[in-house]
Structures are given as structure tokens and as C-alpha cells.
């Protein structure tokens, strides 16, 4: 990919977004997802918060069908691909596939909170935390401190 554009989405609106860091000065676009906004009934508060985050990023703002808008943005800049950052929302995978049907898409992974070899037992938080906590505190050079077991006091 020699001349990409960046697709910024709502799970990575910080200056540390790996796509922005890896490609400074590259044209970037964020698309307000018309279908999602209407279906979810998002309030103006939520859209305003996103908008204010975006005003601090070097990014073009659009509104409509996300995949169509990203592809149109790529054509506008005569790009040969799209770089973005991984997202968890299942909708992201669907949009990425629609874009990838027409242009190569590179997905950059942000640094994980804690690196755990799969499979991780997620049946209850306690099972996950038993694995994650020592790894986290190992990073700080400390042993696991005792934490009260109960999350909500009665």
C-alpha cells in the first residue's frame, strides 16, 4: 500500500490512534454512521461528544453509509488502500469487509491492556482476573496486592 487513506472510527478517537501515529499527514476520514445513529436512537449528547473529540483530530468528517463514504474518500485522494485501527464492535467487521471488497484494508492493533495467551476463560470475571492480575502487576514490578472481593457494598 503506497498511498493509503485512514479510516478513523468511534473506538479510536485519540491522538494515539495507531493509524494516525503510523501515517502522520495522511488524509483521514470519520463517517457518522447514519443507519446506526437512527437505529440506536443516539441522543445529541453522544453525537456532540464524538464531534468534539473529532475536532481535535486531523480528520475529514462525513455523514452517511460508512463503507460508501470511506471508499469515496479513497477515490477522492486517489488512494490505493485503507488503513484503520482494530475495533471490537461487530459492525466494524461488516464495514471492513465491504470496504475490503474494493480496496485493500490494513487493520492496526492497539497495545492490549494485558497480554494473555488464548484461550482465556471468560465465564466469570473472577476467572479472567485470576489470570490477568498477576500479569498486570508484574509490569509494575509488584506482587498482586490484596483487593476486597466484593464489588458493591450493601
Amino acid at each position, binding site marked *: 500500500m503506497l498511498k493509503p487513506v485512514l479510516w478513523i472510527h468511534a473506538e479510536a478517537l485519540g491522538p494515539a490512534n495507531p493509524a494516525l501515529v503510523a501515517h502522520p499527514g495522511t488524509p483521514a476520514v470519520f463517517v457518522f454512521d447514519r443507519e446506526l445513529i437512527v437505529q440506536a436512537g443516539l441522543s445529541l449528547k453522544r453525537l*456532540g461528544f464524538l464531534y468534539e473529540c473529532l475536532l481535535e483530530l486531523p480528520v475529514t468528517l462525513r455523514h452517511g453509509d460508512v463503507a460508501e463514504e470511506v471508499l469515496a474518500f479513497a477515490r477522492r485522494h486517489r488512494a490505493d488502500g485503507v488503513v484503520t485501527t482494530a475495533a471490537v464492535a461487530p459492525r466494524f467487521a461488516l464495514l471492513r469487509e465491504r470496504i475490503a471488497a474494493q480496496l485493500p484494508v490494513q487493520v492496526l492493533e492497539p497495545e492490549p491492556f494485558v497480554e494473555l495467551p488464548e484461550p482465556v476463560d471468560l465465564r466469570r470475571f473472577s476467572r479472567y482476573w485470576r489470570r490477568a492480575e498477576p500479569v498486570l502487576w508484574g509490569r509494575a514490578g509488584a506482587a498482586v496486592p490484596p483487593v476486597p472481593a466484593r464489588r458493591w457494598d450493601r
Partner: protein
Amino acid sequence: MRSGDSLPPGDLPRQFASRMELQATLRQLFPEAVGDLSPIRGGSQAAAAALAAIDPAAYGRSRNHLDGAVTRLSPWIRHGVLSLVEVREAAFAWLQRTGQPPQAAAKLINELGWRDYWQRLWRRLGDGIWHDREPLKTGQAPEHYAAALPADLLEARTGLACMDGFVQELHSTGWLHNHARMWLASYVVHWRRVRWQAGARWFLQHLLDGDPASNNLSWQWVASCFSSKPYLFNRDNLERFSSGRYCRVCSAATDGTCPFEASYEQLQVDLFPGAGPC
């Protein structure tokens, strides 16, 4: 929007003279979106200021209290303005700077772990987070729960000062203390017997940090389809962690009609007559 913007067709404006102008523009762009802007501002500058102000030790001691030293970082974390890694490193740096033992930041790190846990589950379950993870433990069949939220709740006129206060705060600011979320969710699901999905969708409409995984799976935890028992609270609990601010001005608290004025054992019997002992 400012005159003089010369943008390619379809590009949204980026220049605003004021927040009022931004709000007016958003109303034109998104006519279906209800309400006003939140007093909480988006952006990495506001996020950095909030991150610099965290006090992990005070957080650990007081986070369950409405007046506690909670970080309010969740809207920025949810949208990746701040990553969990950045907050984790800020907490570790705070330990180094203050010379406090690891225990002082343990609760904050634990709560960051909850966020990571919900995200891992979302990656695994996808849209399955909208379905009951397990059977309810309330003795009630899922079809005995209403599909929609009652109007008096949405209009903040239940007559219960606490619940009406939480609804007003949710609608006007897009942020609620986590304990208030739990109380409100418990009231919706267990006292009003509404399906958790209706409450979850409502929260996602308004919460600036509205994240389908954290939100839905927490509603399921309250409802008891992702926990071993339903989450309940009583007046003593709410009054203690809110410093009595609602009960003092609530007519239900003085005329004997407060639905939360009971022991946990009595509430269990009243709300879940078909359930076995917890």
C-alpha cells in the same frame, strides 16, 4: 456554521464560534437526535486534564459513594481517546510519584480489568450480548417482563426522588455514577419488571460512555442472567451512599410508600415469590 467555510460537498464543518453554534449545527445535521449537548466536553485535552487529576487511593476508598473520588474517565476510554494502557500507566506512575504501596491503586486497576473483560466477551459473543447469557434466577419467566420502559420513568415522574433524579441526570448530562446506574437498572428490571434489553438500549442512547458490552452485560448482571442472583438494593444502602440527598426531599421516604424501605430478605420474598432462597 460559520460562513466562509469552503468545504468539499458533503464534508461536515469543523469551525464553530461557540458550543451553541456547534449544537445548532448538530441539530440540522441530525434532526432525529434528541436533547442538547452534554456539559461534559469531548476531546483529548479534556481527557488529559481528567487523567492528570486521578487519585487512585481516594478512588479505592470512596468509589461506591455518589460523592466519591471517581475518575469520570469512562466517556474518553469508551471512545479510545484514552486507552486502558494509558490509564494503567498513569496509575502506576501515580504509585511511583507518591510512594504509595500497590494496594493504593488496586481497585482502580481492578475496574480497568472489568472494562477489558467486557471487551473480550464482546469480541467472543458479538451481537449475542443482546441475549440472556443464562436463565434468570428471579423465578420469573422472561415473558413476564414488559418490553418497553414505562412513561412515568422516562418522564422522571415516578414520585421517587432518587430514581427521578437519576433519570434527569442521565438525560441532561449523559453520565451517571456507577452505583446510580446499578440502582436505576435494578429498579427498572426488578421493581418495574421491564426486560433488561429495554433499559440497556435506553442507557446507550444517552450515556456518553455507552458501550454495548459494558452496558448490556452489566444489565444482565443486575437482571441475574449473567450472575448467580439478582442485584438488589434497599433504602438503607441508597441513603448511605448518596448521603441521604434524595430521601431528605422524597415524599415516599416520609409517607411510608418507599418501595426500597425493607430488609434484603423481605425484598427477596416480595419481588421474587417464585424463586428459591438465595
